[in-house]
């Protein structure tokens, strides 16, 4: 079609643009005007990331044809700062920590800008309403609302201690580049053809028609890359594209690279694949049957069980016979997904070797939205059969992960292979729908629990069984199979413990690690189970918890070594803040209050491949003119690890964080770090960086001590100076000390690394669960149940989290609040369901099709669905953490859903044992006033005996 010339005023400048009628404003702003702050999170008007201002009013640029915008005045965040000075709103976002991954930030700022321009005195509720079309998955919205409301006011007192993110300016001005924001000369666009069937054999693939489509450069199928991979050595069950069989609706089958994305999209329609349908395995019970085909025939079980774990610590039989009360319950935890706002994207660029014609000797660079650049690099090299040292993986800014980007994905292999085949750069960005198919979300888990207890509320034994719906591939599932049981021995002492778990394969998108990896499900079960026991025993749920707490410097029955432990403080804090004693059981009808507590790891004690190598390495160099540069392999995924690492170096060297540069997550430049998963970064990368920085400080002290004629041990580095503690007139400017040290020792550079101590027991499976340290959390939730609609309105959440030393309070609070918001969504509104097999239909009878493939159908909380959150940080200084710090990014999620369940019981007297608590379920439970899952047995042993 003919292009037409339109004139737009964009950020105050007139732009004459030749646009085709079908181009959206988002396409034109991103690709013609090159304003990449205009983010595309869903492309269907459901997330708000692409918000721009048109004549001062927010609009969704993905739903507007550029050709209809003639003469409009468009504003993006790139245009907010004037003469190099940030807009007050941008400053406020920085000061309040109103962004984490930063992907929703440009749209959020613009919606806020419009709101306060129109109504400068907006109330909190009005601001929330104005932001309610902009989804944020990281923050829980509170800080954003506060930032908007407090514009032009000095930052909150409590936040003055915290440094804003070091990458925050790039985020609020739109200069932060995420993977999809990159383009390269001659770049092609790739697309993946996906299986429409849940389970089928591939009989043939014919790509000839697609290859002939003008604009298509190359096409690939699974046979070209037949090498299996998987994030764990024990489950190498994936290939980049399916070879002989498809295992879920959305499994990749072929891929194309074309000169533009439309052509690539169209080319997929020209690939014909012949399938032979196989019976699909769609549920845990299907998977346990022996009469259905095996999804992965190579497994050792006769049905679709992928992993079975059985571990006993002590003797549960003994524990149960010592009990006065024994109770059994069943629970179900529905599946959920990360729903980070940035879809997965990868851009590959291949360069042939100068002295070999084999691509295997060539060089590959991959920019990718990954939490684990190191694992992606290893796996790429393995699958592409290239030299690992020739593969470079770079993680640009990342728009949220939550576990959903923590292993290699099909697009990374396909972009790379298509680039190798075509000799041109290839970019693949998933649609929101593809993100749902690729997700690796929370395992749906069916659980059974049995607990023995003394009359006084002391736990004597716990027995636990779990069935985990793993979806089509292994992912991190073997670890999940252990985590589901291992963490039940914290934060309450369990003297005798036994668990059994079965992770099964089903023909659904693979499950994997989502924030809290395997721990939220048993935590939900146990915390509700414990509340029921408390009710039975006539005890206060708080009392029964306080009675059984693990203590610092103790060992659990399954050999988890607990060092620092602030769980008692956490629980006491939230009880006090919430007014628990005055509220429990005493609130007006329909209102209720609930408590739950949890513990989580600060990094997995074992790396994924066990070679005894450091888990994290760092290089710190000091600049002759002051300042330092850190090279770290760790990946900032929005949680703020870059800032934490910079602050550790700044603290050690006594200089300002603004003088630290962090170069991260580029496998050519930065030493290995295993990635952002298992809440390991602050602890492990932090320790590595600290070690390097301390070595440099030591050199500076040595050099300075000579000049100042003082002992090295008397010196300290503070506020840009090296000062003697004994005689404060003996001082040197930092830069002078640097020069002295450099003159004496040569270029100032140090390496640091971290490997956890040997942890855990000696039993098989003892490697999954141990961590060098554990965080602890308690939540009290107060809510209201609308008994007509079944809606639950959360009014307050009080959260206390023991993160060791809080290195940046603002960011720790941000992590806790983000966890709470995600926990609320998971507990109340997020439903992942799949179509059932429906015999009788000619087509589509196969089932297994995701019903939630968009952010309209998968309902994550908006700004008006999350209440204000009260957060308390408990600092049990950890003996091994960097400056005493441990994790804050995942643990605070675990006990949110059970606290909600327990509060619902307090409000309306029903025990919910199946997550999520949708309005429909609540109404049904209210109607029957019976728990949803069967209450198996309540036995008063002594009475029975008597």
């Amino acid at each position, binding site marked *: 079609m003919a292009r037409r010339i339109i004139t737009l005023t964009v950020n105050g400048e007139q732009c004459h643009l030749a646009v085709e*009628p079908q181009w*959206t404003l988002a396409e034109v702003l991103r690709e013609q005007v090159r304003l990449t702050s205009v983010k595309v999170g869903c492309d269907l008007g459901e997330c708000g990331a692409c918000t721009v201002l048109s004549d001062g009013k927010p609009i*969704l640029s993905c739903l507007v044809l550029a050709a*209809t915008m003639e003469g409009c005045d468009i504003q993006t965040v790139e245009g907010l700062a004037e003469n190099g000075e940030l807009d007050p709103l941008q400053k406020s976002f920085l000061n309040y920590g109103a962004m984490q991954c930063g992907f929703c930030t440009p749209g959020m700022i613009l919606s806020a800008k419009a*709101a306060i321009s129109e109504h400068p005195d907006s109330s909190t509720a009005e601001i929330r309403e104005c932001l309610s079309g902009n989804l944020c998955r990281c923050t829980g919205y509170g800080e954003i609302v506060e930032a908007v409301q407090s514009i032009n006011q000095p930052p909150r007192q409590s936040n003055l201690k915290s440094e804003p993110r070091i990458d925050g300016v790039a985020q609020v001005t739109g200069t932060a580049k995420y993977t999809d924001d990159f383009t390269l000369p001659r770049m092609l666009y790739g697309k993946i053809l996906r299986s429409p069937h849940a389970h089928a054999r591939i009989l043939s693939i014919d790509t000839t028609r697609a290859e002939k489509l003008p604009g298509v450069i190359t096409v690939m199928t699974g046979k070209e890359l037949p090498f299996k991979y998987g994030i764990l050595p024990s489950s190498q069950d994936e290939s980049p594209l399916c070879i002989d069989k498809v295992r879920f609706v959305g499994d990749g089958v072929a891929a194309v690279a074309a000169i533009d994305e439309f052509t690539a999209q169209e080319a997929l329609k020209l690939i014909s694949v012949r399938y032979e349908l196989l019976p699909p395995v769609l549920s845990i019970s299907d998977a346990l049957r022996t009469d259905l085909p095996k999804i992965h025939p190579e497994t050792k079980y006769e049905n679709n069980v992928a992993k079975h774990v059985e571990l006993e610590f002590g003797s549960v039989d003994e524990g149960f016979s010592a009990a006065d009360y024994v109770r059994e319950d069943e629970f179900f935890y529905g599946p959920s997904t990360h729903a980070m706002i940035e879809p997965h994207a990868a851009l590959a660029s291949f360069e042939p070797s100068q002295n070999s014609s084999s691509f295997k000797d060539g060089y590959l660079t991959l920019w990718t939205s990954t939490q684990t650049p190191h694992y992606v690099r290893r796996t790429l090299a393995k699958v592409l059969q290239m030299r690992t040292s020739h593969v470079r993986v770079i993680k640009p800014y990342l728009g949220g992960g939550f576990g959903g980007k923590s292993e290699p994905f099909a697009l990374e292999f396909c972009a790379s292979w298509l680039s190798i085949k075509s000799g041109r750069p290839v970019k693949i960005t998933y649609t929101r729908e593809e993100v749902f198919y690729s997700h690796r979300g929370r395992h749906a888990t069916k659980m059974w629990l049995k607990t023995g207890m003394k009359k006084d509320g002391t736990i004597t034994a716990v027995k636990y069984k779990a069935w985990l719906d793993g979806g089509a591939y292994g992912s991190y599932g073997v670890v999940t199979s252990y985590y589901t049981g291992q963490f039940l021995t914290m934060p309450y002492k369990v003297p005798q413990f036994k668990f059994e778990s079965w992770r099964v394969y089903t023909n659904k998108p693979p499950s994997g690690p989502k924030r809290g990896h395997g721990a939220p499900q048993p935590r939900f079960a146990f915390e509700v189970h414990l509340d029921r026991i408390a009710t039975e025993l006539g005890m206060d749920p708080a009392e029964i918890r306080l009675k059984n707490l693990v203590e610092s410097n103790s060992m659990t029955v399954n050999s988890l070594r607990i060092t620092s432990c602030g769980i008692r403080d956490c629980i006491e804090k939230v009880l006090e803040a919430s007014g628990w004693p005055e509220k429990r059981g005493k609130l007006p009808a329909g209102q209720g209050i609930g408590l739950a507590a949890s513990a989580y790891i600060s990094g997995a004690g074992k790396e994924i491949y066990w070679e005894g190598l450091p888990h994290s390495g760092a290089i710190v160099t000091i600049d002759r003119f002051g300042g330092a540069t850190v090279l770290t392999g760790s990946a900032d995924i929005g949680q703020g690890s870059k800032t934490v690492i910079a602050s550790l170096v700044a603290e050690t060297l006594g200089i300002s964080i603004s003088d630290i540069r962090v170069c991260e997550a580029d496998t050519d430049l930065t030493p290995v770090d295993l990635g952002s998963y298992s809440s390991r970064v602050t602890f492990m990368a932090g320790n590595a960086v600290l070690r390097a920085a301390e070595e440099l400080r030591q050199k500076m002290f040595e050099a300075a001590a000579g000049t100042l004629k003082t002992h090295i041990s008397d010196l300290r580095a503070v506020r840009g100076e090296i000062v003697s503690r004994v005689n404060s007139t003996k001082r040197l400017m930092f830069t002078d000390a640097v020069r002295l040290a450099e003159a004496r020792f040569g270029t100032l550079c140090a390496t640091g690394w971290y490997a956890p101590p040997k942890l855990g027991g000696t039993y098989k499976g003892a490697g999954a669960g141990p961590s060098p340290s554990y965080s602890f959390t308690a939540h009290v939730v107060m809510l209201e149940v609308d008994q007509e609609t079944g809606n639950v309105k959360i009014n307050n959440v009080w959260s206390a989290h023991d993160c060791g030393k809080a290195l940046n309070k603002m960011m720790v609070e941000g992590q806790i609040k983000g966890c709470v918001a995600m926990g609320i969504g998971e507990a109340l509104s997020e439903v992942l369901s799949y179509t059932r097999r429906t015999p009788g239909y000619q*087509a589509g*009878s196969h089932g297994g099709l995701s019903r939630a493939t968009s952010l309209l159908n998968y309902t994550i909380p*908006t700004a008006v669905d999350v209440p204000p959150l009260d957060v308390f940080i408990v600092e049990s200084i950890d003996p091994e953490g960097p400056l005493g710090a441990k994790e804050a990014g995942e643990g605070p999620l675990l006990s949110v859903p059970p606290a909600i369940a327990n509060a619902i019981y307090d409000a309306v007297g029903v025990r919910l044992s199946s997550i999520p608590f949708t309005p429909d379920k609540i*109404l049904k439970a209210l109607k029957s006033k019976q728990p949803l899952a069967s209450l198996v047995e309540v036995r008063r042993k002594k009475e029975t005996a008597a």
Partner: protein
Amino acid sequence: MIRLPEFELLSPTTWDGLMRTLTLTNGNTKILAGGTDLIVNLKQGTSTLSRVIWLGKLNELRRVFMASDGSMHIGAMCTLSEIATSTIVQKRCRVLVDAVLSIAGPAVRNRATIGGNLCLDTRCYYYNQSGFWRDAVGGCLKQHSEDNSSAICHIAPGWARCSAVFCSDTAPILIALEASVKLVSSDGERTILLRDLYRDDGVHHIALKADEILAEVILPPPRKNGVGVHHKIRARQSIDFPLANVGVSLAQDASRICSDVRIVVGAIQSAPIEAHSAEKVLRGNKLTSEHIELAANEAASSLTPLPHIGDTAGYRKKMITVLIRNALNEIVRKEASYA
């Protein structure tokens, strides 16, 4: 990003130009207003077309005014935000503001129009999906309405017609207020009651002729002692389409007897549904809690929501009772506050 296929974009700038353009319409032409529904459908490939007529340049379609007979006229291209902030609408029909503000999020409302909301496509989770998804499930009646294939309706397999649901948040209350719409084509114009615009058929739910556009919404002069209420239930408190909604308009005489009652339930079937049985319960009676309860139950028992968003039909049926009860109770509260 999802790339749209090519099409021709016509943007008439004058009324005459519009008339000429409308003569060019055929089966592959779509009218573009705000685009918040149409562009999504184009991206998901549920609409195929070769030509788009955009109405955004016609100032005639953007006016809100009071006519001398006391009726209020709202141009079809007024955005939902413009309606919510229009002093005329705020003063004359507050309930429409409530309804409009319950739609989607602020950025959508800045673009979406009242005409577009009244002409929304029907929705169903077997249909509002990507082409890949719909093909995976084997297509459906709505998708294959034109090509005579043997497709079936997945949510009501026995049905010969599509059971996608009409999810407008403004239609129920406007029907309850007895609004009419002015329809314009190259042959001339006609004004019909809004209720007559809709047909309970998921594919052909809007009775517009091929070359006809909805140009204006007309609200009749207010009834004496009339009051209107809009209530909506949705999954989240923003963004979402209704699980069900209700528009109630009611007039009472001096002794508080309901003389005229209209209750319209939306988002449960392929067209807004008038709850006549509930209206009957109230007509000639006072709004006592007994009558309110009776009316709410009567409506729910006579209406059956279609399961267009999964296994929620039973829940949504219960919600009809709740919506009507809450709407009527709000009227009682409003009256108490006037008195």
